[in-house]
């Protein structure tokens, strides 16, 4: 008789319970779910090093599988979990849910890149012992910032300070020594070696609702208390943006605090900061302008995107 794999033993031990959870979840395609368990869940359990007690990890993965909705959407997540299986075995209640949730957040972000993040996390995992899932998740958070989740910036910078240099380099995609204070000071700075700062268009944020964006009309921009806000009619969004990505978050209303920047927009679309100038012709018809530090943002009649210009390296 063939030896049962850890996953098969866990299924046998909890057969009634898993069956009850399946029925209770009222999924409609038992064959697809069985295939999912066999092809995606089983390999994670069997690779996790949980031969002694595979039940906790199996419980979690079955439960998550019941929660994910369309199973095919979870394929990439379970494939990544297979790569991270030893970590899942050590922390079954944390790692699998964390990884699947992170992939969802990245996929839902306009600038998130879940595929690139997965590759980075696998690279990180190869250098972190499985008994240390905390470090993996912290480094994964920094990598998620780099791969498009701009809202993670403040906390990712804080976590980055505690990472080993080699892990930090992998997370931020550079082999150079990372100057975290430079990254903290300049939202557009590259983690790689710095060049001479110059004025440049650094990002365009927002799109027409008809193309999947947030704005039904070209927005107006303003800044308050160091933060960016876009408005369309009565609707207001807070914009978080930096070198790695951007995010829009609906807010009730924008605050009315002061905001000053070093850059100004001259007629004809010329952005100046006292030392340098950059012509951005599309800003010749700007409808609103705001500046924070060394960044200027402007909107125009003809676009649903907000143009960000900054003096930065890279």
């Amino acid at each position: 008789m063939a030896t049962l794999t850890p996953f098969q033993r866990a299924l046998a031990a909890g057969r009634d319970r898993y069956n009850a959870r399946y029925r209770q979840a009222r999924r409609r395609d038992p064959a697809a779910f069985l295939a999912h368990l066999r092809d995606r869940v089983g390999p994670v359990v069997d690779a996790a090093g949980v031969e002694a007690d595979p039940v906790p990890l199996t419980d979690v993965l079955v439960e998550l599988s019941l929660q994910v909705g369309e199973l095919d959407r979870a394929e990439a997540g379970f494939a990544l979990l297979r790569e991270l299986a030893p970590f899942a075995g050590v922390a079954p209640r944390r790692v699998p849910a964390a990884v699947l949730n992170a992939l969802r957040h990245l996929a839902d972000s306009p600038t998130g890149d879940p595929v690139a993040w997965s590759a980075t996390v696998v690279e990180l995992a190869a250098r972190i012992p499985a008994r240390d899932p905390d470090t993996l998740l912290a480094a994964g958070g920094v990598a998620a910032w780099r791969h498009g989740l701009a809202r993670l910036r403040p906390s990712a910078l804080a976590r980055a300070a505690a990472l080993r240099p080699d892990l930090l380099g992998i997370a931020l995609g550079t082999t150079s020594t990372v100057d975290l204070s430079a990254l903290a000071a300049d939202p557009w700075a590259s983690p790689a070696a710095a060049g001479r700062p110059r004025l440049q268009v650094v990002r365009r944020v927002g799109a027409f609702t008809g193309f999947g964006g947030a704005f039904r009309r070209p927005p107006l921009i303003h800044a308050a208390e160091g933060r960016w806000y876009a408005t369309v009619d009565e609707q207001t969004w807070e914009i978080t943006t930096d070198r790695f990505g951007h995010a829009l978050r609906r807010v009730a209303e924008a605050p009315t605090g002061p905001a000053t920047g070093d850059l100004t927009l001259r007629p004809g679309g010329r952005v100046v900061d006292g030392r340098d100038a950059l012509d951005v012709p599309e800003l010749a018809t700007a409808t609103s302008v705001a500046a924070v530090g060394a960044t200027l943002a402007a909107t125009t009649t003809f676009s649903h995107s907000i143009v960000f210009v900054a003096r930065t390296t890279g």
Partner: protein
Amino acid sequence: MLVEGTGPYQHVSQAPTLPGGAHPAAEAEEFDVAALYAGPLGTDGAGARALPLDEKLRQAYFWIVNHAIISPHYDVEFAEGPSPSVTLGDSKARLTLPSGQSYSSFVLIPLLTFAVRRRCLLVGGPGRGKTASAILMGVLAGYPLREVRRAMQHGHPQLTIADLLGTPLPADLIKAERIGDIDIAWRSWLSMRVKIVDEYNRIPTRTQSALLTLMSDGYAEVFDQIYEATDSAWYLTANDDGGGGTYQVIEALRDRIDVVVHALQFNSRFLGELVTRIEQRLRPEELVPPEIVFSAAEHERVSAEILRVPLPVGVRRRLEFFAAQFELLESAGEQFEYRTKDTAKLAGVDPHLLAATETGRDRIADLGAQSLNGLSVRALQSVISYAKALAYFRDREEVGLDDLRAVLPFVLHDKLVPDDDSPAFDEPGHRPYRTDRVSWIRQLFDRACAEYDRLDLDVDDPVGALLAEFDHGLDGLGEAEVTARLARIEGLLAEWARDRKLYGHVYDDALALKYLHQRYVNYRAWLRWRP
């Protein structure tokens, strides 16, 4: 909100479960890297927004009553304004439709026990969900179901102390030269925050004593080795409330139980839910949603938060007045302090026989005449804990009279022993109190409160005023003032001697006045001695 792809059993009532409560919902957390890994998927509730623990407790309650225990009994009633009622049948059975959020005692009381980590006895016939309810509490504490089941102690006539607590290691038994060298393999359940003893009245008497030590003092002892157990919520079950198990339950063990709750009957209108469960082989204890599971830290915190719920003076006074009713037995002693039911019991005399000889008081109006004992300090501590827990559960700023009234019958269920031969039980409408102890205790409290109001003690409480005056301290008090206060105490007692019968609350007040008198006398003696 239901997570995509899950069924109703994973549905937790949306917060707030009690709109308009005293404590607002927690502020949204600061955005953090941790948010990357949070929700919507999860198995430990980490993705859920941090809710106040009282809200989490209510969500647990509603999940249990909606999905786990079929107990459509709202016997813990609260009113938010007028509540309509009807009377049905020849006995004029009153059915009240509460206007406030009301609860099922069979779920609420075990849950409050979980929160305050005390000891709950679940009684009722076989197959009514007593054990299932206890197991759910273990799962709520975050233990895997199989661990809860394995840790549950099943009472049976052969259960030994070693079975219950642990066994000495065989190698040590041979090698050890001193008893202290013998290591004990302690049973794993001792370290759990939820402890379940099924059918505790089938445990042999000797083993009951070991259980008593564990329950009351929090430690286990085998071969001179001590195991300090953690603070736990205890659930004991018994098919027969009257101690009719295989073994008589020792009184000290019964006394350690803080609260008793009945598993009420199954309502046949809910058979459909049972059918669904059988057809789908659903076991609710296997489907407890992670959002309502309490970590060890949360369990600790919820207990601490409950203790901080204030008990206002007005409510405390009514509890004092109620508790004072029961201990007095005038004919049990000669010295004033010994005129109690406890004196009679210690002498082996039935308090009822002595009470029957008393003629001074109206034995129907006297609440104390309906019980064979008074209330112990332990019982009052339990009352206060559960009243605070209920106020916390109901998101109240402080304990209300309704909270106190709701928990009293369950806490005093086995602690206040009725004198079934009391003429009060022969009064029309009072006969059901011989069998319905919950209603009996509740009406005792209602009558005590009515008497408290009749005496207008919230406004005119001379003993309370004297105690408050004393609480300000004796520092700097001159002899003249002390003498004046002594005169007021003596005057008050003299006034009572003229025109007041000795009821329980008067007895307690008289003893309190004697206490004050003694303190002032001693202080005056010190003043006179002082150089």
